[in-house]
């Protein structure tokens, strides 16, 4: 029986790599420490496979045909996508994928009621995978990576309860379908508040972000699902904040429990509230 060895979540945003140095040192220190903590936790937990759940910024399918979740089943995870290189300004990466484990999970979950796809061709990765890979130096850990790309912003999409339920099913599939003793980490990638391409493109809803972080630390998942709905996320920044649905997947996988905040920063020029958490397993 495979085990979930790590459960964390963190923001991604092009500014975190593209213009990180624009932020005051105090903010940079918080963010560096948070992503360092992810690196250290991967190593300390003995994680062998890291599933990165993150928004597909309509980079891998038409807007009218975007699946709810896409399993990256390629042998290698390579990025960033060419289009994003001048924006992200990160080093190219070439990580070991997990096509066998990914296929088992995909097969186990394809009757979940959601629109799932498995893709063996190389997917395009932007800040969703490139930011955590770079900031948390994931290549240095030697861990295999399974990107699980999610539709967080193109309606219709699975809401917070559907994502939480999918997380529960994902955890069950990890435990029952993957090799015994395999140590599997879960990293939700996305959020916090932002509105890319909207009227509030320059704005961060710090009040919402701090409320969300406090809710997660408290760990009452029933309350989180009742109050931190997709609509509430949209109010805090349309078309971006709902990337927190990737955190909902991880929450569902680990079940009700408190977590530790690794810090939060609202720096306008990153155009996204930035925070990270680690669930206590």
């Amino acid at each position, binding site marked *: 029986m495979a085990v979930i060895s790590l459960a964390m979540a963190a923001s991604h945003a092009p500014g975190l790599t593209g213009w990180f140095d624009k932020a005051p040192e105090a903010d940079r220190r918080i963010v560096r420490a948070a992503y360092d903590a992810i690196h250290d936790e991967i190593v300390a937990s003995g994680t062998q496979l890291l599933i990165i759940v993150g928004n597909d910024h*309509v*980079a891998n399918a*038409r*807007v009218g045909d975007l699946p709810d979740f896409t399993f990256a089943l390629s042998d290698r995870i390579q990025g960033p996508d060419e289009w994003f290189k001048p924006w992200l300004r990160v080093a190219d990466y070439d990580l070991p994928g997990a096509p066998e484990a990914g296929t088992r999970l995909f097969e186990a979950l394809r009757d979940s009621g959601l629109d799932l796809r498995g893709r063996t061709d190389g997917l395009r990765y932007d800040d969703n995978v490139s930011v955590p890979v770079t900031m948390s130096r994931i290549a240095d850990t030697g861990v295999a990576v399974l990107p699980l790309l999610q539709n967080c*912003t193109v309606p219709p999409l699975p809401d917070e309860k559907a994502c939480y339920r999918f997380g529960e099913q994902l955890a069950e599939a990890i435990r029952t379908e993957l090799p015994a003793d395999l140590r599997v980490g879960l990293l939700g990638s996305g959020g916090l508040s932002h509105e890319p*391409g*909207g009227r509030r493109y*320059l704005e961060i809803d710090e009040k919402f972000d701090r409320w969300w972080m406090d809710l997660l630390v408290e760990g009452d998942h029933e309350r989180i699902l009742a109050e931190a709905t997709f609509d509430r996320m*949209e109010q805090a920044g349309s*078309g971006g904040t709902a990337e927190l649905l990737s955190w909902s997947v991880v929450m569902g996988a680990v079940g009700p429990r408190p977590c530790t905040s690794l810090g939060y920063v609202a720096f306008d020029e990153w155009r996204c509230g930035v925070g990270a958490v680690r669930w206590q397993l």
Partner: protein
Amino acid sequence: MALDRFNPLLRTNDLVQDLKWDAQLRRRFAESQEQVLAEYPLTDEERTALRARDFLALHNLGVHPYLLSQLARLIHGTGEKTGSSDATTALLRSLLGDEYDGYMASRGV
């Protein structure tokens, strides 16, 4: 809400995705925009808005907001080393119209 006007069937969405995915198409778009536009079954409203760089009109027609921001980058530059790029400025000027200067002043910019 930014997603309220989104129309998944609007072909400008496909055009922006193709431009992101195909470097050769980007070059052709830069050199001969009309030729590229002619290859897509766009409505007259879409063509007019694209020619005018009218991001607000494109938003109202149904371009996904994220792709709208990507279109702004396609037109105004893909490189960015700051959070206040030409692409973002052009996009917000269009979306906010007459409110832009007051909005930016309220933000202390």
